[in-house]
Structures are given as structure tokens and as C-alpha cells.
């Protein structure tokens, strides 16, 4: 299924969870925060929350800033 991931259209496995998506992308869950359709997904919901077709997902991390 297709989703919008960090602004770009990407194919991801059908019915994948947030945890599954991070694993699929090779991203360490402790280092990032995830938003699905403008709402933050807290870490305790990574295993249960499923991504739907057409969802808009943001995966962010800390970078240097002032």
C-alpha cells in the first residue's frame, strides 16, 4: 500500500504497525518520534497502531539547533 512518508510517496507492507514500519526502514525506535495524520503516536502504541493506505507519516529526530 502507498503512504506519504516524510513528504514522499512510498510503498510499505499492507497493514504494517508503526513498530513494523520502523523495523522495515531500519530505524531505531528510541531515537525518533512518529506522527500519523498529524497526531503523535506514543511509544507504547507502536506495536498496536496499524498504518492505513494513504496515511501521512512523519518520522523525526533531534538535530543541532539554537
Amino acid at each position: 500500500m502507498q503512504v506519504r512518508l516524510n513528504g514522499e510517496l512510498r510503498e510499505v507492507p499492507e497493514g504494517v504497525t508503526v513498530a513494523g514500519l520502523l523495523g522495515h526502514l531500519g530505524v531505531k525506535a528510541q531515537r525518533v518520534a512518529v506522527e500519523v495524520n498529524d497526531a503523535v503516536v506514543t511509544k507504547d502504541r507502536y506495536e498496536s497502531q496499524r498504518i492505513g493506505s494513504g496515511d501521512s507519516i512523519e518520522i523525526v529526530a533531534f538535530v543541532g539547533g539554537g
Partner: protein
Amino acid sequence: MADTWSIGRYTFTSRLLVGTGKYPDFPTMQRALVASGAEVVTVAVRRLDLSKTGEASLLEWIPKGMKLLPNTAACFTADEAIRTARLGRELEMGDLVKLEVIGDRRTLFPDVVGLVAAAEVLVKEGFTVLPYTNDDPVTAKRLEDVGCAAVMPLGAPIGSGLGIRNPYNLRIIMETVKIPVLVDAGVGTASDAALAMELGAVAVLMNTAIAEAKDPVLMAEAMRGGVEAGRKAHLAGRIPMKLHASASSPMTGLIGS
């Protein structure tokens, strides 16, 4: 007694807060952070580059024990800033946020209407909000009224190094609000940091002045000294300025008189 200061439920000794942007490399940043003596460091929240997930993370280079202060830099609307603050909280697992709502790309001056609106929402969500704002006492009061834990007026535009352009407004802000006033942005060198502290700021926040100095580590040390000197001068109470001289040596008992 130690000269400490507090924001919300946090108490600090160092009155210098520093950013983590614009350094030539992570090792230099790490040495500068240590040299600054800072207890609070700002960080930005950005999309993860999914093509570089194996690379070293900023967090590995921030010395242990330093408190992270996520910012909402480059957010141009209250909604963007609120979303970014929520993501920052999820990353940091804390409630501090340096709230920025920017109104103009060239000057990076705050959009104070959006800033107050975003602050009100985030305070209700339990955030300890530190807003980056103009040197405007009325806005500072509005930010205090909606529950901000501190107010952080600019000395000059972000990264400009122009120093403290309006010391009188900063003084008025300090008279107007009861929450801590931190000077954020515009500092160029150690005397600027000292001046901010002499005026009565509880702390100074800076990034570019250290990160883009020729020797960031030495400048971090200088800024630490400037902040400490300014704080002590503020506590000591400076003499009033006078137009004419006041002799330091006796004017009587001179030979040949």
C-alpha cells in the same frame, strides 16, 4: 548559598544556555558544550533522513547530564509549532519547550500573535513553555498571562551578533513580568552576554556566537566568563553614572600646598 535559578520544576546553577547548531563538527561541539558549563542545551526537531539511518546521532555527542530543550525553530504558524513541540516532547520525554513562531524569513522576528496562541495551547497540555519573543514588554506580559514559565526576549535578530540593541526595553520587561527573563539571540561576544546579565536577565541563551567563532571552544569559555561576570556585577550593584569626575585619591595633603 549557591546562586541558582529555576524554571518550572527545574533548578539550575549555570546561567548560560547554549545551542547545538552550526558547529563545524560534533567533536568541536562537544568540547564547546563542556567549556560553556551549560546545563541546558537546545536541539531542533527535523524529519529523519531515511537514507542515512545508520549515521551518528547528535545525541551521542551531547555530554551526559545536560538537559535537552527542544525548540520549534522554523515554524511559521502556531499549529506547526504545537505539532513540533508535541514531537519534541515524545523524543525528549520531558515537558520543556523553547517555543518559536517565526513571522518573517529575513529577520526571523517572532510572530507574536501566533506565539501567544501556541503558548496558551501548550501550557494547557502541561508543557513548561519558554517562548522566544520580541523585546516588547506588552507581549512579554501576554505570555506570562497565558502561563509561560519564562520569557525569552531577543537581544538582536537570531545569529546576527549585533548584541543587546534595546537594553531599555529589556529592563522594562524585567520590571513588567514576575517570571524569569532570559535573553535569547543576538549576542555576538562575551561583553554582550555580560551586559544582558548586568541588566538583570536570569540567564542568556546563545548558539551562533559560539558555534561560528573562529575557536568555538575558547569562545564558549569566554561566554561562560562573561555571563558569570555580568551576574556578579548585577548582584554587586553598579555605581550610578555621573557626568563629572569623582576623585579616587584624596584632594588634600598634597606636597607644596
